[in-house]
């Protein structure tokens, strides 16, 4: 029998710490994925994950059951990402290429059936996509990430970002167009 998020929250509030561990296990992959794509570094993504779940645990009693737990969690994670990005903004920017060591180890494993040229081609393609995505403003980037990699609906994204659906669509469209323009230039490379 699998407990729903709300059941696990109730159990946690009743003092069952294991119930919260189950919630963490259920959502850590998504939160890590979101943070990693937002920030581009494994270390930062791990920190954001830790901060997100800690904040969720501390404020669990404030969570209103009428909203989805995942939306609430995504919102906390995005806030943490934005805080970190603001801090990074005051520091010298790092090149995405220098961060490939962090990123690559969590990408597709080197499958036996994949030849070396295929693997290189895939890596190169992933790097170009990553650069294009990182070059976007955070508001556009987060919408693209939630839509493309987390398969959220426009309404869900609007709920997480607390913006109207029309704003979500507008940001998504502009972001996709900017990425497209950038990638079209490099189409020959991809």
């Amino acid at each position: 029998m699998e407990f729903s998020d709300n059941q696990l929250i109730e159990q946690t509030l009743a003092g069952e710490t294991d119930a919260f561990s189950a919630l963490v296990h259920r959502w850590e992959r998504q939160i890590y994925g979101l943070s990693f794509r937002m920030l581009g570094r494994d270390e930062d993504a791990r920190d954001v994950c830790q901060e997100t779940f800690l904040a969720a645990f501390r404020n669990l009693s404030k969570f209103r059951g009428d909203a989805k737990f995942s939306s609430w969690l995504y919102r906390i994670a995005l806030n943490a990402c934005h805080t970190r990005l603001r801090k990074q903004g005051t520091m010298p920017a790092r090149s995405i290429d220098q961060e490939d060591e962090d990123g690559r180890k969590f990408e597709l494993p080197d499958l036996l059936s994949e030849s070396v040229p295929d693997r290189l081609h895939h890596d190169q393609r992933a790097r170009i996509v990553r650069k294009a995505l990182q070059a976007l403003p955070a508001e556009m980037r987060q919408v693209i990430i939630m839509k493309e990699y987390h398969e959220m609906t426009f309404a869900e994204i609007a709920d997480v970002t607390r913006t109207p659906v029309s704003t979500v669509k507008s940001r998504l469209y502009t972001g996709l167009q900017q990425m497209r323009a950038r990638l079209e230039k490099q189409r020959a490379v991809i």
Partner: protein
Amino acid sequence: MKHESSNQTGKQTGKCERHEDLLDYLYEEMSSQQAATFAEHLGACPTCTTELQGLQRLRTDLRAWDFVAAPSLEIVIPRSPWQALKECFQLFPLWGRGAFALSAAAATLLMAFGAFSLMRGATVSPANIVAVPSTTTVTQTVALTPEIKAQVEAQVAATVTTTVAKAVEQAVAQERQSLRTQMAAFESRTAEQQVRVQTVARQLRELQTRHDALLAEQQPSLRRLMAEYSDTGNANNER
């Protein structure tokens, strides 16, 4: 969802501004009727068709940056002192917890009994204390008739039994709850593993297809090389 110009299906020659509809169509967030209407529009609007193709290509590119799994994270949730104590208590086996509860109950009763005896001692009137030697006073204070003693013993036994039963019941309930939670976590993990396996299987299939395509692509040049090799061999033999 509002579609500002969903009835526009005519041929578009200039700039078409149906971005929202285009996104709804691209991400399949339209009703089938709206999708059919927009598909009709696409047939007549080269701007939207080009846009759609470009966005579909972009989505394929975006999928290149994928990773199968996140590294295993260690999220440390701080425990309150009460929780830590409770978890420490749960580490003991059931009999240990029962014994602890029994000892605690016995100690409590002993203290209550001691307090009760002291109170009884305190109720003795000062006149008695003065009239009777101190040793006699003590004897009078703690001495119990066999009936009262039997009554107290029965009460103590009943209280201890109830307390122990409650403690055991509570421990069993906690054990059950913990097992249920662990089971749920295990099931959730199994489901995730299945999804991962399916993802890897899908990727393997895709890779196999790409591999086959590459092989098919390379086959003419391989044949040519084989033919060249064969020709060279024949020429050498003739020589």
